[in-house]
């Protein structure tokens, strides 16, 4: 009996992808001075659309527009009115959610199940949540009337294009700032659909400006003299460069950088649930997640059982066409990312980390990588230390909770960690000892706008979400009072 799934394709036409997209600058859609870029569908390698990019002069114009909007309507508007704009945007995202989900899948390569059930609804939720803060800033514990910072320059990555735009824009606006945002070079489409939503919401011109382009545009934005606040999500090396470039400028900085999250499974865990958690921890979004549970730490006594069950579960993951509603693992975002991930898999194999790969068949075209597990790694191997940012899990073992903690914390990163145990006191103890900004006990990869997210150490500083996320967009300096 054939028990394979029939294809259940979402229609690509729902995205209404236009042949060309423009910058959103000072309330208008305009051509930029940079060379057009081509956005590619990672599942096929074919051109999806063409996008105009910003020049340095466009960055100047956008920052000036954002400053005018800040000095003009936006900082003078009452918080309640500002909040109503955000509520309106949240509603409009929900209304256009199907279109946004399909567009995101086409532009990014991630499965429609994720864009439909996670990326888009969570983006709407971020606007809805932060809308309510706009008239309640005095309740943040930052004084009776904390002030916004001014113009926020924001640079976001390609792994959650719309969601990262929402994470950045919503708190910035709720606090009363205006925004110049650069979406990632390979995934500009949903940010520009969001721009249509902002325009339709009658957001005053210049309050949000969206400038597609490559790293040079991002660099021009964060280093612009007219920018008061910088928020960057991306790699640790680029984050370090931005922190260095901003030295002495007094610009307030939020960095959300890389990670090498430990997912720790104790012998007393509910093993089947833990296996599900390991799978979602590393294969969610093809593992292209800064907080992915990319280092599996299993207690020695159950290591064999866990790895066997894990392999069996991974064999059932459906890898392929991202628009298929049954697909679990889609395409990596770009040729560059594909090369990086496959290159590091090779390194791991050469290091003797015991590579195992799902026997799934991969599509002929597109940047697909089969789910991969290193079953026999040691802590000093590159695949146990470096962020791979792909569907590749590295497995290590431990004997005692102390050893698990030491191994989990043995990294310059500190973004996320998972703990699987049925013993509540152990879960709490581990959560207290882990040097990570987010700890998931008996779950993984959960996000919410009410819950602060961000890293320790070289995973960055500042938070997004929660009250700490709002503080990142407010002037909280006490002028060096003693």
């Amino acid at each position, binding site marked *: 009996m054939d028990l394979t799934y029939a294809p259940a394709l979402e229609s690509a036409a729902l995205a209404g992808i236009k042949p060309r997209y423009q910058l959103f600058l000072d309330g208008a859609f305009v051509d930029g001075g940079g060379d057009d870029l081509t956005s590619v569908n990672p599942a096929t390698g074919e051109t999806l659309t063409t996008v105009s990019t910003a020049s340095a002069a466009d960055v100047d114009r956008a920052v000036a527009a954002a400053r005018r909007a800040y000095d003009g309507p936006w900082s003078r508007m009452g918080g309640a009115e500002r909040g109503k704009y955000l509520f309106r945007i949240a509603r409009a995202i929900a209304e256009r959610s199907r279109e946004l989900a399909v567009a995101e899948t086409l532009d990014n390569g991630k499965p429609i199940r994720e864009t439909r059930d996670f990326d888009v609804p969570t983006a709407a*939720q971020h606007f809805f949540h932060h809308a309510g803060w706009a008239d309640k800033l005095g309740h943040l*514990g*930052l*004084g009776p009337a904390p002030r916004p910072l001014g113009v926020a320059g924001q640079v976001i990555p390609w792994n959650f294009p719309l969601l990262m735009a929402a994470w950045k824009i919503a708190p910035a606006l709720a606090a009363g700032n205006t925004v110049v945002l650069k979406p990632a070079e390979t995934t500009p489409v949903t940010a520009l659909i969001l721009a249509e939503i902002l325009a339709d919401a009658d957001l005053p011109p210049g309050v949000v400006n969206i400038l597609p382009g490559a790293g040079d545009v991002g660099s021009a934005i964060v280093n612009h003299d007219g920018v008061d606040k910088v928020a960057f999500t991306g790699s*640790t090396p680029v*984050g*370090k*460069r931005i*922190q*260095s470039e*901003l*030295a*002495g400028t*007094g610009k307030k900085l939020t*960095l959300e*950088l890389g990670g090498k999250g430990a997912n720790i499974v104790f012998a007393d865990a509910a093993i089947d649930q833990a296996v599900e958690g390991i799978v979602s921890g590393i294969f969610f979004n093809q593992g292209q997640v800064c907080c992915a549970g990319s280092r599996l730490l299993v207690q020695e006594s159950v290591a064999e059982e866990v790895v066997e069950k894990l392999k069996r579960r991974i064999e059932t993951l459906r890898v392929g066409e991202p628009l298929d509603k049954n697909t679990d693992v889609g395409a990596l975002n770009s040729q560059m990312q594909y090369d990086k991930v496959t290159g590091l898999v090779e390194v791991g194999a050469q290091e003797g980390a015991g590579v195992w790969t799902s026997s799934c068949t991969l599509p002929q075209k597109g940047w697909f990588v089969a789910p991969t597990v290193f079953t026999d790694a040691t802590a000093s191997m590159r695949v146990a230390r470096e962020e791979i940012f792909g569907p590749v899990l590295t497995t290590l073992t431990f004997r005692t909770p102390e050893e698990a903690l030491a191994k989990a914390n043995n990294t*310059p990163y500190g973004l996320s960690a998972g703990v699987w145990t049925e013993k509540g006191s152990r*879960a709490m103890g581990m*959560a207290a000892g882990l040097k*990570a*900004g*987010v*700890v*998931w*006990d*008996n*779950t993984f990869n*959960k996000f*919410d706008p*009410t*819950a*602060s*997210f*961000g890293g*320790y*150490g*070289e*995973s*960055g*500083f500042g*938070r997004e979400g*929660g*009250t*700490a996320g709002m*503080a990142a967009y407010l002037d*909280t*300096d*006490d*002028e*060096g*009072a*003693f």
Partner: protein
Amino acid sequence: MARLAVAKTYKLYLGGAFPRSESGRTYQVHDTKGSLMANAALASRKDARNAVVAARSGLAKWAGATPYNRGQVLYRVAEMLESRRADVVELIVRSRGVKAAEARAEVDAAVDRIVHYAGWTDKLSAVFGGANAVSGPYFSYSAPEPTGVVAVAASSASPLLPLVGAVLPVLAGGNTAVVVASQADPTVAVTFAEVLATSDVPAGVVNLLTGDQAEIMPWLASHGDVNGLDLTGVPADQRVALERAAADTVKRVYSPRARSGGGEPDVTAAPGTARLRAFLETKTVWHPVGAVSLAGGSAY
């Protein structure tokens, strides 16, 4: 015949002990009349590195102490400073040439500032954390945790209050500190270290270096085991290089801008929370909420 006074040797404060600089270097500190007050230790790069080791080794105990306990220890610091009030006033009067009333006001403000921070330790979680109302069957909370080892360049705006006002928020959050004292005020700074040493503050929690901030701070800013920098005492034109060095390991940097009105800080003003927040990390923890039927029937 007049009795010959016993002069005190001012040394560093590292890991709970008072050693000389490993370099053997000292510098002379004079009062406003030009008389020698002391030979202070001129700390070296090696001293700074030793201080970081001491601060790291002191971290587990201090960060792991209960907030109530940390509050009690910090309150004890206030008690001990109060008992050394006369000594510190005399040192401030001698080194700065100010009137005794002014020196007393500074010491009083410093004691009160310590009491203020002693009361913060068990409120940080309530004020900067809490339960997160997540949209799913999870108990989620966020709570502040110490950043780790913080290097502090104390301001020379006055001898005591800037030192206390920078170190106490670092400690209240559960961090440990490597402090580079104001070069002009080593006698007050080392006396404050003696206060700490007799206040149940565990060894290594505060490590005090005297000497040239311009010489020592670059080593601390680039040190891989330092997690945060407070650059209040560093002149604006020297901060850029330090902030740049800090980026190599993504250190948290507190670098307050110049006061908008200019002039010295108002010592009577409440200090706000920026110094506390600068060296706190927010950790968010998620736990599933089990499907337990409250009605005693089937799970829902």
